[in-house]
């Protein structure tokens, strides 16, 4: 690494020249027809329905069949359904909706998310989860020191800032949704709570696929929490993380099976212990330099995947991490060329695996 800086010439801007191509001209022509359709009653394109998965732009006619129920991303005008966002058409039973290509995170019940406290209020915390509205975490929905299931007292109410304060990161589950679409969270499990010993990365929420498990143990003694909202936490694996993984993926790791029951019982007896003040501690454990370096590498790998607009999943992170080992210096991973080649490596190895 000799260069202090890498300067690249930017690729050409999107220019109007493209429109001079025949293809675009004809497209433009049909667009104009659409405009006419919207105002007038004539419909020259009737019968051309957008099928499931096709891409539409705002104002584009999706169907003139009135039997469809109009969902998100669509509007209804004179018995015709138009798109109101750029995205793909989705047809589920009779429900017609357009899934936007890019949008803020829309919470759903059961989502495992990572959020940041923005406000401490009356018996509740406001949490930024990257959605339209701040989520709410009620004092009653968290584990408090001194037993998991005790009643919340007034003293708890007065020292809420000692548990979680502005800026703190936590992972939680969406418990329910309010009428306005904002989420109510809970952390009533030991896998949820304040986040420590690691670093935070933010990616577009569309890159995270909802799955059963969002906490993954990665090679190098690292645990990653892929929040459905695109907030990601990478940390040094704790004992808890390791014991959880043996129980969750016990079938995969048969040699750990005998120990897994043990780990279970330990984690249950530790329940009381763990829910002492320590879960709200603001102190990091000692993290060795090599673990810190691994965390940085993972962070850069995840940013590279996001740069290539690849969905971020556990196998992809591992595969990209292994591919990144070709670059000894973690700092090299921030060059856009390196990021792109890394993304290509991941795709190639996926194809290979598919072929094999």
């Amino acid at each position, binding site marked *: *690494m*000799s*260069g*202090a*800086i*890498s*300067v*690249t*010439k*930017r690729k050409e*801007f999107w220019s109007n020249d493209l429109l001079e191509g025949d293809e675009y001209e004809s497209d433009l022509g049909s667009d104009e027809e659409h405009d006419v359709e919207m105002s007038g009653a004539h419909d020259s394109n009737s019968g051309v329905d957008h099928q499931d998965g096709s891409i539409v732009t705002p104002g584009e006619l999706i169907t003139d069949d009135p039997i469809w129920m109009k969902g998100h991303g669509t509007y209804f005008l004179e018995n015709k359904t138009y798109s109101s966002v750029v995205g793909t058409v989705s047809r589920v039973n009779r429900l017609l909706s357009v899934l936007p290509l890019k949008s803020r995170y829309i919470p759903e019940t059961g989502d495992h998310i990572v959020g*940041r406290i*923005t406000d401490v209020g009356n018996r509740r915390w406001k949490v*930024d989860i990257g959605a339209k509205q701040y989520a709410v975490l009620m004092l009653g929905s968290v584990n408090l020191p001194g037993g998991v299931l005790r009643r919340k007292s007034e003293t708890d109410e007065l020292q809420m800032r000692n548990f979680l304060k*502005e*800026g*703190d*990161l936590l992972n939680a589950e969406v418990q329910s949704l309010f009428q306005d679409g904002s989420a109510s969270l809970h952390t009533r499990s030991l896998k949820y709570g*304040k*986040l*420590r*010993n*690691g*670093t*935070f990365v933010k990616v577009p929420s569309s890159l995270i696929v909802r799955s059963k498990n969002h906490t993954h143990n990665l090679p190098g003694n690292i645990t990653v929490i892929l929040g459905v909202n695109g907030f990601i936490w990478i940390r040094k694996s704790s004992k808890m993380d390791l014991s959880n993984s043996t129980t969750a993926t016990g079938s995969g790791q048969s040699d750990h099976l005998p120990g897994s029951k043990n780990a279970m019982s330990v984690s249950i007896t530790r329940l009381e212990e763990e829910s002492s003040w320590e879960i709200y501690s*603001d*102190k*990091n454990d000692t*993290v060795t*330099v090599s673990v*810190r*370096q691994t965390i*940085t*590498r993972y*962070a*850069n790998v995840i*940013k590279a995947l996001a740069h290539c607009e690849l969905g971020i999943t556990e196998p992809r992170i591992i595969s990209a991490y292994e591919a990144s080992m070709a670059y000894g*210096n*973690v*700092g090299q*991973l*921030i*060059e*856009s060329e390196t990021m792109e080649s890394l993304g290509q490596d991941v795709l190639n190895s996926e194809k290979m695996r598919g072929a094999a």
Partner: protein
Amino acid sequence: MGLSITEKSFLFDSLTLDPPLRTDGRGSHQFRPIEVSTDFLPNSNGSSHVILSGGSECIVSVKTKVVDHTVESELLVTDVDIQGHRDDSPLVTSMSSLISKLLKQTIDQKKLMLTKRYSFKLYIDVLVLASKSYPVSMISFAIFSALKNTWLPKLISSDDDLEVEELPTFHDYDMVKLDADAPLLFTFAIVGDSVLVDPSFEESLVSNNGLLITWYKDRATSPIRSVGLNNDNVKGFSQHHLEEAIKLIHKYAPDVERALVSSD
């Protein structure tokens, strides 16, 4: 948005290691990669667009007009606009004042003179489209690239109009490249005992102090300023931090300058 206490201490501990481990694994002398495009504004004499990895972005346009410098002595007008900040906010006004003062000092106004009466007057407009960290480095890189790619109309009339009153006339399409050296500004973050160049947003939040050092004509020069990169972790620093920063500049600024010039 602020970081949590644990994030801050984790980051602080990483940055104060020897060698420091930065959020994105860069070395302490390494800049974020930048993308530069120049000459993309057809209506300007010179323009540049600088994008830092991580999403900070800045556009600079250089326009010119011919003025009578016996009447108008101010030949350089610089304006800085930062998206998301009011024009009268401390950040924008102090940045604008710093940069326009600096450019007035460094750009040789004699080179703008056409004749004994007429001069080019340069309007340098800076628009910061997106910026999370302290944007001054990015702005100076953009101004540097824009000025290196500024083309002025070629004068074909005589350059001595002291006796004969004559308006300058220009060649129809021939242009002359502006020969101007713009200064580069470097930001350093001081975190514990580490001195880091080009701090990212997160690094700025945990830094104890910041330094702004100018690189002009192959040497570190004034303005040298201590700048607050945040409001709640500010501490004093020692003389050797400053010397370390100057050493880094002397070592790597020529690389940066070369990279910016060769990208054209």
